[in-house]
């Protein structure tokens, strides 16, 4: 029924009103004395000029992909916890076994991911700084 969603609509409406009051109130009441420095995106640091469409390291992509996989796993587990108490006992044991195997298979994937270092953030620039190319050490700089 549509009327079941009236509380949600009410909640969304209240959230909208509060957000509008906060933004609109500061817009109406706050003093505005703009200076060039205040209007720049960052008051200090580099000027952000250029295309926003930079190439991103593949690691962002990998992290997002691994996130989706475990997101879907959790999505499969929601219904299990909803129905667990309603199932008859023998079916309950069966369902528990199914979920156990399901989770076990995904834990294998998780362990693989962990051991392969897919969760380590290896920034190329940082990496270069931490592990410099092997160079002949200059004379007289022995620590």
């Amino acid at each position, binding site marked *: 029924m549509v009327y079941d969603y009236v509380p949600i609509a009410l909640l969304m409406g209240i959230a909208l009103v509060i957000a509008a009051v906060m933004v609109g109130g500061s817009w109406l009441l706050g003093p505005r004395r703009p200076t060039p420095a205040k209007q720049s995106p960052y008051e200090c640091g580099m000027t952000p000029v250029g295309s926003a469409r930079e190439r991103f390291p593949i690691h962002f*992509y990998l992290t*997002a992909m691994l996130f989706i996989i475990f997101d879907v796993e959790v999505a499969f587990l929601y219904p299990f916890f909803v129905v667990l108490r309603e199932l008859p006992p023998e079916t309950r044991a069966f369902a528990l076994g199914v979920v156990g195997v399901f989770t076990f298979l995904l834990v294998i994937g998780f362990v693989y991911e962990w051991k392969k270092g897919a969760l380590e953030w*290896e920034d190329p620039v940082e990496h270069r700084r931490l592990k410099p190319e092997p160079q002949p050490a200059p004379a007289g700089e022995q620590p």
Partner: protein
Amino acid sequence: MLERFFFFLLALLAIATAVGVVANRNPVRSALLLVLNFISLAMLYFTLSAQFLGVLQVIVYAGAIMVLFLFVIMLLNLGSPEAVAQERELRRPLAWLIAVGLFALLVSQVFLIISPSTPMAEPEVGTARAIGLALFTQWAFPMLIVAVLLTVGVIGSILLARRRVA
């Protein structure tokens, strides 16, 4: 009455955003419109008494999958919107043929399905409870195959994205 009103509102929103996805020249804007499209589809699921599917649509598609889409757009380094702007080759006969054929197929199916007694969605068919009852009795084995598939996905994505050593 109110349900019908919401259905038409959501259907209109879904069609408008879908047209926007195709017609927009900027791929990032297309992706954002696709998010709106997924959300309107999720609300349609809610009106079909499939709340769990609607929530999953928001969590998985509008949330996670679209993040991937945006990353792919960024990864491909498409350059400025002007550089990406595709030529609108509306005169391509093959494109027209496929588009019109697909549209005719869909419309004919819709008219075949519609009967004097409009089928209604079964109540509670898509709640977490109904899905759980089906999943852990009848569809337990397919669920384990899904687990294997997800594990393969983990391993495959790591293999593809890892740093080539030597």
